[in-house]
């Protein structure tokens, strides 16, 4: 089944004000840069964005925050972004902070048809407020519900025309679970190859989870914390 669309415009067709989007990435690593740029261009507003982080002031989801396109963020860590902090403290932006492992599992559950699950993470903290608590093996756990999205937008290293995806290094992060949890999943890839060129033994995300795939025009791949060691 050919999932290829020819442009980022075509890939993001149908995204409207007020929708819920999932966006892959950890910090600026493995984020769908081309799609984010297109969301800025489209100017869609009142978005609920589910993403581990919120980018930095001038890159990643920070670009959508600058344009006040996001109504609500669901994330685990939002440091490194002054505009985010300003909008949150002033109450302009609604923020739901959830433990990283729970965020990953809630996306996975959403894609896997599991409506909710119990986890020990967050028991006894603000995160547990209003949530059912149950004891398993003598230890308290809280009930967390699945997350899904109108569109999930992920970034992969290589993809084929069937939508099968391979990620590179730690740019994999949340992308595979979010790909599963989108009603429509869009994959932007660095290399797009014909079906049959990727070894089926080494596919990370099976194409069944992907509805649209396109080759990103340009990947800046910004580094957030450049740390190096000296050669002796």
């Amino acid at each position: 089944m050919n999932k290829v669309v020819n442009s980022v415009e075509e890939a993001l067709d149908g995204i409207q004000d007020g929708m819920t989007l999932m966006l892959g990435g950890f910090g600026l690593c493995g984020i769908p840069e081309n799609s984010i740029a297109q969301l800025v261009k489209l100017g869609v507003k009142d978005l609920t964005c589910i993403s581990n982080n919120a980018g930095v002031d001038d890159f990643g989801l920070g670009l959508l925050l600058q344009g006040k396109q996001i109504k609500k963020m669901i994330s685990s860590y939002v440091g490194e972004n002054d505009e985010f902090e300003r909008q949150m403290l002033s109450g302009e932006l609604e923020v739901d902070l959830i433990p990283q492992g729970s965020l990953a599992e809630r996306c996975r559950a959403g894609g896997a048809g599991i409506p909710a699950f119990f986890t020990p993470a967050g028991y006894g903290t603000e995160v547990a407020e209003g949530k059912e608590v149950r004891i398993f093996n003598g230890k308290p756990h809280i009930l967390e519900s699945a997350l899904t999205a109108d569109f999930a937008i992920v970034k992969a290293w290589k993809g084929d025309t069937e939508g099968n995806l391979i990620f590179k290094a730690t740019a994999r992060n949340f992308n595979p679970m979010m790909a599963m949890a989108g009603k429509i999943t869009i994959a932007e890839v660095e290399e797009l190859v014909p079906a049959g060129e990727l070894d089926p033994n080494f596919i990370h995300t099976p194409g069944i989870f992907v509805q649209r795939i396109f080759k990103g025009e340009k990947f800046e791949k910004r580094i957030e914390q450049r740390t190096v060691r000296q050669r002796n």
Partner: protein
Amino acid sequence: MALDKNGIAQRIAQELRDGWYVNLGIGIPTLVANYIPEGIEVEFQSENGILGMGPFPFEGEEDADLINAGKQTITARKGAVFFDSATSFAMIRGQHVQLTVLGAMEVAQNGDIANWKIPGKMVKGMGGAMDLVASAENIIVAMMHTNRAGESKILKECTLPLTGVGCVKKVVTDLAVLEIKDGRFHLIERAPGVSVEEIVSKTEGDLVVPDHVPEMKL
């Protein structure tokens, strides 16, 4: 003299055991990797999706696709593996990781820890810390004994929003190694040249002090 951040990391590294998988948090914990005792092998897990994390890359060899949970560029050791975030937290929640080292703003004598939010001032989020502390069997907190105003961060009760309850068993600070048992802190070691009196005066929580408190050997 009180230890610096590297000294704290060096002391924590003495807790590493051969064959352990270890998750190091951001800040002082990251430095622990620089002091692995000779003759033992450990693998570092970073929750963004790598097992077998190596040192920082040489200049010019940074890869934007290869970072740790602190978003720093890193390298992968021989035998390293990459995985998605759900798999990563399966390792953590499923207790496949033997040791977690993380920082804290406050620790209480009942083992509670706070490290993700200062209401009205700083809200960065918990990241993976809540998952880590809720599941890890073996947690060491790396922190300074007091804040910049000189107030104790080793408390009877945490005042900040909690990250986890009753989970911390060991704390290594710039002044001391403390264990948490039976709802109290126990003084195990003191930093070289630091007096028991200084530690007692800078500890707000209940502290059990044995007759003899050995100095750390670094």
